[in-house]
C-alpha cells in the first residue's frame, strides 16, 4: 500500500503543479521539492523492512486482466536504492530550479519534472513487465518534452533522443511480450525466477539481446551514446536530473533487474563488458576534449555509465555491490556537478571554459564563487575516485568487480586495465573541469566580470548537499552495506550477499588500480596541458548525430520513392491494380484447378448466339471508336442487348428497367458530351496493346468465373420460397416486385437513398465547382439568320408531338406503377417512364430556360425517401420496420383492388426516381453553370447562349425576358 501511496503522492504533485505554479511561479519548485523530500523520507522509512528484514514490499491491483497485466509494484533492495535516488535527487533539483530560472512561467517544466519523477518511481517499482514498459516509455516521453521545450535548439536533439530511446523501448516491449508468452505471466519477479532461463539458452539469448538494446539506448551506451551530449540542449536542471542522476540510470536499473536471469549467459557477460568498457573509454576521452562544461559532464556520464554496464556484465556478487554503490556515488557527484555548471553559467554568464577564463578574474572564478568552487571540488574528487570520497570507494569496487569477469583468465585483468584507462581520463577531465572553471584565468580579460558573484544559498544549497553527501557517505561508507548487500543478493538471485564496503580494506589490487588511475591521470593532465592539446580535435571521421541524420534522410528518401509509386490522380493507374489482382486470382484458381459440379440443365439456347454477335459488335465498336458520340451510343447499344438478354432470361421487369435506364443514360450523357471535345484522346500503340491484353485477360477471367461458378446447381431454397409463398405472404404475383417491396424492401430503401443522394450530390458538386460551358455553336456552320437556326420555330414539331405523347406516357407510367405488384411494372420502372416524360418536355422546349422545370426537385427526392421511410415505419403496427400491411378495397371502376403499404413504399421510389431525373436534366442541361449557381433546389436563371462580346459580364437576369432569342439580336455567324 505504501508503494501505491508513493505513486499517488507523486501523481498528486503533478496535478498540484498547476495551482502551485499559478500561485508561486518559479518558486513552485520549493513546495514540489518538499513533496519529493517527503517521498524520500517515505522510502527511507522502508529501509528496515526492505534492507533489514530483506522482505520486499508488494502491491498488486488488476489493470488489464484480459491480457493478464496488473498494476503490480514491488520494492526490493534494488528498487529501494533507485527509488531513493529518484526522489532524493529530484528533491534537490526541484529546489535548485526554484532559483535557477528567471522569474516567469515554468508550468510545463515543473509539471513534466514531477511527472518524470512519477514515471521513474513507477519504473523502478514495477513488478509487471508491461507496467515496466509503460513507465519506461513515460520517462522517454518526459525526457523528450523536457529537452524539446527548453528552446528551439533543443527540438532536433529531443527528437533524436526520442527516436533512439524508443527503439530501445520497443525492444523492451518485445522482450516483455516474449517473456510473458513463454512463462504465462507478466509478473516480473516470477518471470525472473522461472527455470526457462537456464533451460532454453536460445530464448534467453533473444530476450537478453532485447533487454541489452533497451538498456543501451536508455543509458547511452556505444553506439547509441550520441544522444546524451546532444540532449544537453535541455535546461541544466533537466540534464542534472534526467541525464545524469535518474533517467539514464533506468538502463542500469534494467540490467541489474535482469541479472538473475542472464548472469550465467556468456552473451550477456561479454556484450555488457565489451560495450561498457568501450563506452567508458570513448566517453572519457570525449569528455576530456570538451570546452563546454555541460558537454564535458555529459560525456563523463556516458563514460561512467559504461563502467557501470561493464561491471554489471560481470554478474558476480562483488560486481553487483560495486554497481549499486557506484550508481549512488555517480548520482550524487554528477548531479552536483551539473548543478554547478548551472551555477557557473547563471552567475558568470557562460559555461564555456574559454569564456570563463577570459573573464580574467585573478585567481580564477573561485575568488568570486568560493562555495561553488568547493562544491565542485568535492564532487570532482569523488568523480575522480580520490579518497575519502564515496567515488573512491565505488570506483575501487568497480575495479574489484571487473577483475572477477567470467571466462578465460585474461579477461578479468584486461577488463580491469581498460577500466583503469577510462579512469585515467576521468581524473584528467575532472581536473580540466574543476581547475579550468575555478582555478584558472586569462591574463588578458575581454569580458566584464563585474557582475559575477556567489550564488545565493537557495541556489547553491542543493549541489552542496549532494557533494557533501558524497563526502559523508565516503567516510561512513559501511552505512551502505545493508543496501549494497540487498541489492547484490537480489541481483544475483542469492539469499544473502556480503558487501564489506569500507574506506580501507588493505592493499588490494583494486587499491593499486585506483592509485594508478590517479597518478597516470595527473601525468595525462600535465602531458596534454590539462586537455588543451586534445580539445576540439575530431578523433573520428563521423559522429553519432551525423550517422543518425543520414539514416533518417535515407529512410525519408526511400519513403518518397515508395510514395511516388502510387502518386497519380489518373484513375486508370489505380484501376489497373485491382483488375490485375482479379486476373491473378482467376489465374491461380485455374492453375490449381477447382472441382465443380456439372452444369445443371440446359444453360444455353441458340437464340443466345444472336445476342452475343450483337453485343460483340457493339463492344468492339465502343472500344475502337474515337468519336465520343459513337462511343456513347455503342455502349448504349450493348446496354440494349443486355436488356434483350434479360428478356431471354425471363427477367421482364429488369429488362424493362434496363432499357429505359439505357435511354435515359444516353439522354443525360448527351447533355455532358456537348461540353467536351468531339473525339476521345488518342491511344498510343503501346497503351493499346497493354490495356488490350489486360482487358482480354480480365474478360477471360470473368467468363471462366461465370462458367465454372454459376449454373451448376438447382433452384435455391430462397428462390423456391419466394415462388411458392409470395402470393400468400404479400398478395403479389410479380415475385420480383414482391421481393423488391416486401421481402427485401430494405435493399430497395437503400437503393432509393442511393438514387436520391446521387441527385443531391450532382447539385452540390455543381454548386461548388460549376460546369464546363457548352460551346456548342462552335460546331455550327450556318448563319444565325438561317431558318434552320431558329430554336423556337424548329422545335415546334417536337413540341406538338411531345404534347401529344405526354399524356400517354404519364398514363402508362401510372398504370405500370399501380400494377407493379402483380404484373410487369413497379415504382422504379414507372418512375423512369415518368422521368422520361419530363425528359421529353425538356428536350422539346425551345430553350433551357423554358425547359426548366419549376418544381423543387430536391424536395421531390426528399419526399420520396420520406414517404418510403414512413410506409416502412407503418410496419411497426405489425411488428417490424417495412412489414407490409395489405388488404383489399373495392374501388368504383376497378373493382376489388389489392391495396398494400408496399404501394406507398413504391410511391416513394417513384417520386425519388422522377426527382433525380429532373435534377439531372435541369442541372446538367444548363448552357453554363458557375460555382454558386446551383443552390439547394433552385437554379439561378442564366442565359442560354454564351455572350458574344464580353465574356466577363455576369448573366443578365430579368431586364428582358431571355426566354425567346431572336436571330438578329446576336448578329451574324462567328
Amino acid at each position, binding site marked *: 500500500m505504501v508503494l501505491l501511496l508513493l505513486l499517488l503522492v507523486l501523481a498528486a504533485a503533478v496535478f498540484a503543479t498547476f495551482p502551485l505554479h499559478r500561485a508561486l511561479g518559479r518558486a513552485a519548485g520549493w513546495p514540489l521539492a518538499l513533496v519529493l523530500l517527503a517521498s524520500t523520507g517515505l522510502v527511507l522509512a522502508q529501509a528496515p523492512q526492505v534492507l533489514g528484514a530483506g522482505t520486499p514490499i508488494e502491491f498488486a491491483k488488476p489493470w488489464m486482466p484480459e491480457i493478464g497485466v496488473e498494476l503490480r509494484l514491488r520494492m526490493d533492495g534494488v528498487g529501494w536504492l533507485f527509488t531513493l535516488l529518484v526522489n532524493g535527487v529530484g528533491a534537490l533539483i526541484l529546489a535548485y530550479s526554484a532559483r535557477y530560472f528567471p522569474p516567469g512561467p515554468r508550468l510545463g517544466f515543473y509539471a513534466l519534472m514531477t511527472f518524470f519523477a512519477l514515471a521513474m518511481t513507477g519504473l523502478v517499482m514495477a513488478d509487471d513487465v508491461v507496467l515496466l514498459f509503460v513507465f519506461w516509455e513515460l520517462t522517454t516521453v518526459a525526457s523528450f518534452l523536457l529537452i524539446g521545450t*527548453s528552446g528551439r535548439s533543443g527540438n532536433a536533439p529531443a527528437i533524436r533522443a526520442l527516436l533512439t530511446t524508443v527503439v530501445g523501448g520497443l525492444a523492451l516491449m518485445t522482450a516483455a511480450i516474449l517473456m510473458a508468452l513463454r512463462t504465462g505471466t507478466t509478473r516480473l519477479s516470477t518471470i525472473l525466477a522461472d527455470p526457462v532461463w537456464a533451460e532454453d539458452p536460445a530464448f534467453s539469448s533473444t530476450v537478453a539481446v532485447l533487454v541489452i538494446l533497451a538498456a543501451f539506448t536508455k543509458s547511452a551506451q556505444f553506439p547509441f551514446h550520441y544522444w546524451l551530449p546532444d540532449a544537453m540542449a535541455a535546461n541544466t536542471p533537466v540534464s542534472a536530473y534526467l541525464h545524469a542522476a535518474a533517467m539514464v540510470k533506468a538502463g542500469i536499473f534494467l540490467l541489474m533487474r535482469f541479472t538473475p536471469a542472464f548472469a550465467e549467459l556468456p552473451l550477456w557477460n561479454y556484450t555488457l563488458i565489451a560495450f561498457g568498457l568501450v563506452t567508458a573509454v570513448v566517453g572519457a576521452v570525449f569528455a576530456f576534449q570538451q570546452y563546454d562544461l555541460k558537454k564535458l559532464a555529459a560525456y563523463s556520464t556516458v563514460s561512467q555509465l559504461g563502467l557501470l554496464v561493464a561491471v554489471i556484465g560481470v554478474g558476480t556478487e562483488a560486481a553487483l555491490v560495486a554497481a549499486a554503490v557506484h550508481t549512488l556515488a555517480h548520482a550524487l557527484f554528477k548531479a552536483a556537478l551539473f548543478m554547478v555548471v548551472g551555477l557557473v553559467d547563471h552567475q558568470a554568464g557562460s559555461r564555456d571554459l574559454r569564456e570563463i577564463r577570459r573573464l580574467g578574474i585573478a585567481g580564477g572564478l573561485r575568488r568570486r564563487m568560493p562555495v561553488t568552487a568547493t562544491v565542485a571540488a568535492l564532487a570532482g574528487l569523488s568523480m575522480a575516485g580520490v579518497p575519502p570520497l564515496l567515488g573512491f570507494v565505488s570506483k575501487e569496487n568497480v575495479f574489484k568487480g571487473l577483475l572477477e569477469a567470467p571466462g578465460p583468465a585474461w579477461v578479468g585483468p584486461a577488463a580491469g586495465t581498460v577500466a583503469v584507462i577510462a579512469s585515467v581520463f576521468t581524473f584528467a577531465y575532472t581536473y580540466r573541469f574543476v581547475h579550468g572553471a575555478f582555478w584558472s584565468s586569462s591574463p588578458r580579460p575581454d569580458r566584464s566580470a563585474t557582475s559575477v558573484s556567489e550564488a545565493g544559498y537557495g541556489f547553491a544549497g542543493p549541489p552542496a548537499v549532494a557533494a557533501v553527501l558524497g563526502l559523508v557517505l565516503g567516510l561512513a561508507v559501511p552505512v551502505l552495506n545493508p543496501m549494497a548487500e540487498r541489492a547484490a543478493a537480489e541481483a544475483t538471485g542469492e539469499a544473502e550477499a556480503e558487501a564489506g564496503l569500507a574506506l580501507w580494506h588493505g592493499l588490494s589490487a583494486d587499491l593499486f588500480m585506483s592509485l594508478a588511475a590517479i597518478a597516470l591521470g595527473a601525468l595525462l593532465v600535465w602531458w596534454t596541458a590539462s586537455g588543451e592539446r586534445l580539445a576540439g580535435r575530431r578523433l573520428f571521421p563521423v559522429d553519432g548525430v551525423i550517422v543518425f541524420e543520414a539514416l533518417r534522410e535515407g529512410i525519408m528518401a526511400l519513403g518518397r520513392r515508395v510514395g511516388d509509386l502510387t502518386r497519380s490522380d489518373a484513375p486508370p493507374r489505380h484501376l489497373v491494380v485491382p483488375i490485375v489482382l482479379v486476373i491473378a486470382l482467376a489465374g491461380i484458381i485455374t492453375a490449381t484447378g477447382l472441382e465443380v459440379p456439372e452444369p445443371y440443365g440446359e444453360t444455353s439456347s441458340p437464340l443466345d448466339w444472336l445476342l452475343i454477335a450483337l453485343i460483340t459488335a457493339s463492344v468492339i465498336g465502343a472500344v475502337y471508336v474515337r468519336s465520343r458520340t459513337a462511343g456513347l451510343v455503342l455502349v448504349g447499344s450493348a446496354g440494349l442487348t443486355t436488356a434483350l438478354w434479360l428478356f431471354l432470361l425471363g427477367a421482364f421487369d429488369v429488362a424493362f428497367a434496363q432499357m429505359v435506364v439505357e435511354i435515359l443514360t444516353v439522354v443525360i450523357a448527351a447533355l455532358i458530351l456537348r461540353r467536351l471535345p468531339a473525339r476521345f484522346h488518342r491511344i498510343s500503340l503501346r497503351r493499346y496493346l497493354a490495356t488490350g491484353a489486360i482487358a482480354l485477360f480480365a474478360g477471360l477471367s470473368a467468363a471462366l468465373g461465370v462458367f465454372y461458378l454459376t449454373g451448376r446447381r438447382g433452384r435455391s431454397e430462397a428462390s423456391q420460397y419466394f415462388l411458392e409463398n409470395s402470393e400468400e405472404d404479400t398478395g403479389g404475383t410479380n415475385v420480383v416486385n414482391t421481393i423488391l417491396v416486401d421481402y427485401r424492401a430494405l435493399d430497395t430503401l*437503400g437503393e432509393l437513398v442511393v438514387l436520391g443522394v446521387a441527385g443531391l450530390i450532382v447539385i452540390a458538386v455543381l454548386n461548388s465547382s460549376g460546369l464546363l460551358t457548352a460551346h456548342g455553336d462552335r460546331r455550327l456552320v450556318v448563319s444565325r439568320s438561317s431558318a434552320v437556326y431558329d430554336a423556337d420555330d424548329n422545335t415546334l414539331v417536337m413540341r406538338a408531338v411531345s404534347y401529344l405523347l405526354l399524356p400517354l406516357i404519364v398514363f402508362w407510367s401510372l398504370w405500370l406503377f399501380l400494377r407493379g405488384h402483380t404484373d410487369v411494372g413497379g415504382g422504379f420502372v414507372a418512375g423512369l417512364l415518368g422521368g422520361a416524360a419530363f425528359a421529353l418536355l425538356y428536350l422539346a422546349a425551345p430553350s433551357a430556360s423554358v425547359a426548366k422545370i419549376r418544381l423543387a426537385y430536391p424536395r421531390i427526392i426528399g419526399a420520396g425517401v420520406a414517404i418510403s421511410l414512413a410506409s416502412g415505419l407503418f410496419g411497426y403496427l405489425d411488428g417490424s420496420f417495412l412489414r407490409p400491411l395489405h388488404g383489399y378495397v373495392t374501388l368504383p371502376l376497378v373493382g376489388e383492388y389489392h391495396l398494400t403499404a408496399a404501394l406507398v413504399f413504391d410511391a416513394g421510389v417513384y417520386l425519388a426516381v422522377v426527382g433525380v431525373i429532373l435534377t439531372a436534366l435541369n442541372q446538367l442541361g444548363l448552357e453554363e453553370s458557375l460555382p454558386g449557381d446551383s443552390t439547394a433546389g433552385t437554379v439561378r436563371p442564366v442565359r442560354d447562349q454564351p455572350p458574344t462580346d464580353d465574356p466577363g459580364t455576369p448573366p443578365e437576369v430579368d431586364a428582358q425576358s431571355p426566354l425567346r432569342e431572336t436571330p438578329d439580336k446576336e448578329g451574324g455567324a462567328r
Partner: protein
Amino acid sequence: MNTSLNLPEPTAYLPLLIVLPLAVAAALVLFRVPVRLERALLLAPGALILVASTGLLWLVRDGTVLAHNVALWQGGIAIPLVVDAFSALMLWATALLVLVCTAFAIAVGDDRAAYFGPLVLTLSAGVVGVLMTADVFNMFVFIEVMLLPAYGLLAMLGSRDRIRAGRVYVTVNLLTSTIFLAGVALVYGTAGTVNLAALAGAAAESPAVATGTGVIILALSVKAAVVPVHGWLAPSYTNTSAAVTALLSGLHTKVAIYAIYRLYAVVFDGDTRFLWIGVAAFSLTMLIGVLGAVGENSTRSILVFHMVSQIGYILLGAALFTELGLMAGIFYLIHNMFVKTSLFLSTGAIEHTHGTGALDRLGGIAKREPLLGAVFLAAALSLSGLPPFSGFVAKVTLVAGALEAGQWEAAATAVVVSVFTLMSMMKIWGSTFWGDPPKEEGGDGDTGNAGEDAAGGGVAIQDPPRVRTALLLPGLVLALLTLALGLGAQVLLSLSAQAAGHLLDPSTYVEAVLR
C-alpha cells in the same frame, strides 16, 4: 386488413438506427430550417445512435447476439440485422466519430455547403447498415449508401484539385463495388444464398464458394486500402476538407475492415489455409504505408499514408485468427479510428487556421497553442504505440498475438514500423509545432543557455491566427478518449475479447440470425 397484428419485439427497433439519420436527412432536404436548428438536427442522430449503441454494448457485453429479421420474414429469407459485441463496438465508435467530425465541420463552416447535412446523415446511415446487416447483398447496398454521400463530400469541399481527386475515389470505389457485386453473384451462384448465417462455414467446405467470397474480400481489401491496392487513398483524401478526410478515414476503410473480419470469420470459418496470404499482405501494408508517410511533406498526406500502414496492423489481427490476435485487431481498429480522426482534426484545425498543411510553411505552433500541441502529441504518440495512450495496448496485444501465433516476421515488422511511425509523427511535430514559423527570422536561438527563458524566447509574430476553441474541441475529445482507453484499457479489451469470441465461433451469431 389483417386481424392479427404482431407486436414489435425489442430487437425490432434495430432498423431505427438506420431510419433515424435517413429521416432527418430527408427532412433537411424537404424543409428549410434555421441554421441553429439545422445544426442541432445534424448532430442529433449521431448523439442518439451513440446513446443507443452504448445501450447495445451493455446488452451484448456478455456475448448476447441481438438479431432481427426485417419485416419478420422467416430466417434465411428476410434481411437480418444483427448486433453482437463487434458490431456494437463499431456502432459506438462510428457514432462518436460522426458526431465529432460533424462538430468540426460545423466549426469550420463546411456544413454550409449545399446538402452537407443530408449527405453526412445518409453516410452514417449507410455505415450503420453495413455494420448491422447479415446479408451480403444488403451489405453491398449499404456500402453504396455510405459511398455516394462520400463521393459528393469529397468533390464539393476542399482544395481546387478536389474534383480530380474525387474521380480517383469514385472510379476505384465503383470498380470495387462492382467486383464486390460480382462476388456476391458468384456466392449466390455456388451456395444459393446470400444470408451470412446460412453461408457459415461454406467457404471452408466448398472451394467454389471460397472463390466467390474471395472475390468479395478482394474487393473489400481495395476499399480498405491494403497494399498493393492502396494507391488510391492518397490522391483521394488529401484534397478534400479535413472534416471529410477525418470522417472517411474513420469510417469507410474501417467499415471495409469490419466486413473483412466478419466475412472471413463466418464464411471461411477462419480457414487457416489462407491466413499466410493475409500475414504477408498486411505486413507489407504496414511497411509500405509507413514508408510512404515518412517521405511525405504535408500533414495531411503523412496522415493519409499512415492510414495504409495502420490498416495493415488492424488486419493483421484477422490474419492471425487467434483469440489474442482477433482481440488485438479489434482493439486496434477502435483505437485507430479515434486516434487517426483526432490527428486529422487537430491538423485540420491548423490547416483551416493557417491555410496550409505544408510542413515548410508552418512552425512554432506548440508555443502559441499548447493545448492543440498536447492534443496532437497525445494522438501522435498513441498512433506510434507509446503509453499511456490506447496505442500501446493495441500494439502490445497485437505483437503478442503475432508472436503467440509464431509469426515473428510480422511481429518484427509491426515493431519496426512503429519506429517509423514515430519518426513521421515527429516530422510533423518538429516542423509544425516546434521550430520557427518560416516567415520570421531565425530568432536568438541560444536557448541552451542557463536562465534563458525558453518560453519567452519565441519570436514576436504579427498577430498569428489563433485556432478557435470550437476547432480544438473535437480533436481534444478524441485525444482524451485515447488516453482513457490506454489507462482504462480493460473495458475495451474485454469487449474486444467478446467480439473476437464471436468471430472465432460464429455459432451464436448464426443461430440468432436463422432463428
